[in-house]
C-alpha cells in the first residue's frame, strides 16, 4: 500500500470517528452523518485507485446494483419499520464479510479451481481470521434476516423452543471451532470452510428463533455489533486498518446499545438470548377472578385534559401501529396553547429499538426538546395532573416494582401511577408482550378509554376544538 492510499484511509478513519462524535447532539447529527458518508466515499475512491484492481466490470455492476437496491430500500421504508430495515442492512454487511473472506481464501489458494493448495507463504493468523470472518459474517447475515422476518411478521414472533436448544447451539459452535483448527493446520481442505459456513447458517437460525418478538431490539443491537466485528475481522484478513477501526467502532456501538437495552429491561444478555421469555409464562398468570375497570368516553377524557395544568404523554408502540402520532402531536400542541405544560416521557424500550419512539414522534413534527428520557421526567409524575398513556403497557406496569414472580419484576418503569389522574388509551385489556396483567388499569384513579388510538385521540381533538 503506498503512502497516499494509507493516508487517505487514515483520513477516512478520522472522519468516521468525528462523524460519530457529531451524533451526540441533534444539532450536528445530520452533518455528522453526511461526514460519515464522505469518509466512505473517500475510502471507496482510494480503493478503486489501488493498483491491485485490474478489472472494473464486476465492480461497476456490483456498485450499481447495490446502490440502487440501497436507495430503493431507504426511500420506501416506513419509520415504524426501521428495526427491520436496520436488521436487513446489518445482515448484508455481515454477508459481505463472509463473501470477502471466502474470496480472499480462493485468491490465496493460488489456484482458484481448488484442486491444489499451492501457496505455502500464508501465515496462520490470516487463516484464523478467515475462519472467524466466515463464522461471524454468516451468523450476522442469517440471524439478522431471521430477526427482521420476526419483526416484519413474516415469521411467528413468539419464541420457538425445543429440548436441548442451548446444548445443540454450543455443540455447533464447538464444531465450527474444531473444523477451524483442522482447516488452519491444513488450508488445502477448502470443504471445511464450506462446512463452517453451513453450520454457521444453521447457528444463525437456531440462535435467534428462541428469542421472542419483544426482545428483538436487543438482537438487532447485538447483530449491529456483530456486523461491525465481522468488518473488523475482514480488516484482519486483508490487513486493512480502516476496516479494523470502522468495524470496531460499530462493534462497540452495538455492544453499548445492547447493554442499555438489557438494563432497561432489567435482564442479563444471557437471559434475553436463552430464556425464551413470553413462551410459557402467560398461561400461568391469568387469575380466575374477574376484575372490572372503569370505562370512560373520549368526552370524559377531553374534559379532563382541558382542565389539566400539566400533562405527560407516555407513548408506546401501539401508538405507532395505529398511526396516531400526527393527531397526538395536534392534541399536544393544542393543550400547550391553552397553557398546559405538555411533555413526553420516553421509556428506553418504547418502540421496537433504542430511540425508536423519538424518531416516530420527530416524524410527526414533535420538537425533540419535549421528548424526555425516563430519568429526566420520572420524578415529575407526582406533580402532574394527567399522565396520558397511549399504546404502552409493560413500561408502565407497577408489577415491575412489586410482583416478584412476574417476568417484568425489576424492570425500570415510568412512574405513571404517581400522577393525579392516569388516562389509558388502549384497544383492549390484553396483556403486553411480557404476558403480565396490568394492575394500573384497575386503579381507581385510572380512566380507561378503549378504542383505536387514532380514533380516540382524533375524537378528543375534535371535542377540544369546540
Amino acid at each position, binding site marked *: 500500500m503506498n503512502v497516499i492510499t494509507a493516508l487517505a484511509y487514515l483520513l477516512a478513519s478520522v472522519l468516521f470517528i468525528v*462523524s*460519530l462524535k457529531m*451524533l*451526540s447532539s*441533534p444539532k450536528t*447529527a*445530520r452533518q455528522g*452523518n453526511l461526514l*460519515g458518508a464522505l469518509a*466512505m466515499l473517500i475510502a471507496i475512491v482510494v*480503493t478503486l485507485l*489501488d493498483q491491485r*484492481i*485490474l*478489472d472494473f466490470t*464486476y465492480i461497476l455492476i456490483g*456498485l450499481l*446494483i*447495490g*446502490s440502487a437496491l*440501497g*436507495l430503493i*430500500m*431507504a426511500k420506501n*421504508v416506513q419509520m415504524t419499520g426501521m428495526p427491520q430495515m*436496520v436488521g436487513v*442492512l*446489518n445482515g*448484508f454487511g455481515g454477508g*459481505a464479510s463472509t*463473501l*470477502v473472506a471466502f*474470496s*480472499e481464501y*480462493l485468491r490465496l489458494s493460488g489456484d482458484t*479451481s481448488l484442486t491444489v493448495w499451492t501457496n505455502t507463504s500464508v501465515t496462520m493468523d490470516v487463516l484464523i481470521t478467515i475462519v472467524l470472518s466466515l463464522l461471524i459474517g454468516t451468523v450476522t447475515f442469517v440471524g439478522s434476516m431471521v430477526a427482521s422476518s420476526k419483526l416484519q411478521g413474516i415469521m411467528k414472533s413468539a419464541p420457538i423452543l425445543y429440548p436441548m436448544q442451548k446444548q445443540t447451539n454450543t455443540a455447533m459452535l464447538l464444531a465450527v471451532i474444531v473444523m477451524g483448527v483442522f482447516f488452519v493446520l491444513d488450508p488445502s481442505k477448502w470443504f471445511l470452510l464450506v462446512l463452517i459456513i453451513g453450520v454457521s447458517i444453521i447457528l444463525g437460525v437456531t440462535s435467534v428463533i428462541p428469542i421472542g418478538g419483544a426482545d428483538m431490539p436487543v438482537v438487532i*443491537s447485538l447483530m*449491529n455489533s456483530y*456486523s461491525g466485528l465481522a*468488518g473488523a475481522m475482514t*480488516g*484482519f484478513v486483508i490487513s486493512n*486498518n480502516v*476496516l479494523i477501526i470502522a*468495524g*470496531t*467502532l*460499530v462493534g*462497540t*456501538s*452495538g455492544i453499548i446499545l445492547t447493554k*442499555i437495552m438489557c438494563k432497561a429491561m432489567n435482564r442479563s444478555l444471557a437471559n434475553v438470548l436463552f430464556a425464551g421469555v413470553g413462551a410459557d409464562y402467560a398461561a400461568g398468570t391469568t387469575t380466575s377472578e374477574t376484575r372490572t375497570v372503569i370505562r370512560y368516553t373520549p368526552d370524559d377524557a377531553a374534559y379532563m385534559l382541558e382542565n389539566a395544568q400539566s400533562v405527560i404523554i407516555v407513548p408506546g408502540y401501539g401508538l405507532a401501529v395505529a398511526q396516531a402520532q400526527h393527531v397526538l402531536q395536534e392534541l399536544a400542541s393544542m393543550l*400547550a396553547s391553552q*397553557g398546559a405544560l405538555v411533555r413526553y416521557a420516553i421509556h428506553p424500550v418504547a418502540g421496537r*429499538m*433504542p430511540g425508536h419512539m*423519538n*424518531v416516530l414522534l420527530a416524524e410527526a413534527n414533535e420538537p425533540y426538546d*419535549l421528548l424526555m*428520557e425516563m430519568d429526566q421526567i420520572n420524578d415529575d409524575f407526582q406533580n402532574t395532573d394527567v399522565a396520558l398513556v397511549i399504546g404502552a403497557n409493560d413500561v408502565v406496569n407497577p408489577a415491575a416494582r412489586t410482583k416478584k414472580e412476574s417476568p417484568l419484576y425489576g424492570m425500570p418503569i415510568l412512574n405513571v401511577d404517581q400522577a393525579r389522574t392516569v388516562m389509558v388509551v388502549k384497544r383492549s385489556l390484553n396483556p403486553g408482550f411480557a404476558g403480565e396483567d396490568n394492575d394500573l388499569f384497575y386503579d381507581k384513579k385510572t380512566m380507561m378509554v378503549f378504542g383505536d388510538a387514532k380514533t380516540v385521540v382524533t375524537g378528543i381533538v375534535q371535542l377540544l376544538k369546540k
Partner: protein
Amino acid sequence: MTETLMVSIYIFVLATFVGVEVISKVPPLLHTPLMSGSNAISGITIVGSLIAAGEGHGGLSVILGMVAVVFAMINVVGGFMVTDRMLKMFKKQSPKPPDSNK
C-alpha cells in the same frame, strides 16, 4: 505472530476505547439514527469487496467479490440515506415557549 498482525491488534484494542468514549456520549434521543448510521459505517467491508471483485483472475473469487460489493453497497447507501431521512426530521421547538403563560 507477524508484525502486521500485532499492529492490527493494537489498532483494534485502541479503537475499542475510542468507540466507547464516542458512543457513550450519544443521547438516547438519537439511538436509532446512531444504530443505522453506525450500521452504514460497518459497510466499510466495501473496501475488501472492491479488491476481491477487481482482481481480474476471473472465476469464483471475482463473482463472490461482486456479490460482496452488492451487499456492502446496500448496507452503505441504504444506511446513510435512511439515517439522513431520520435526522432531518429532528427539529427544535419553535421560539415561543409553551409554558410562558403558566
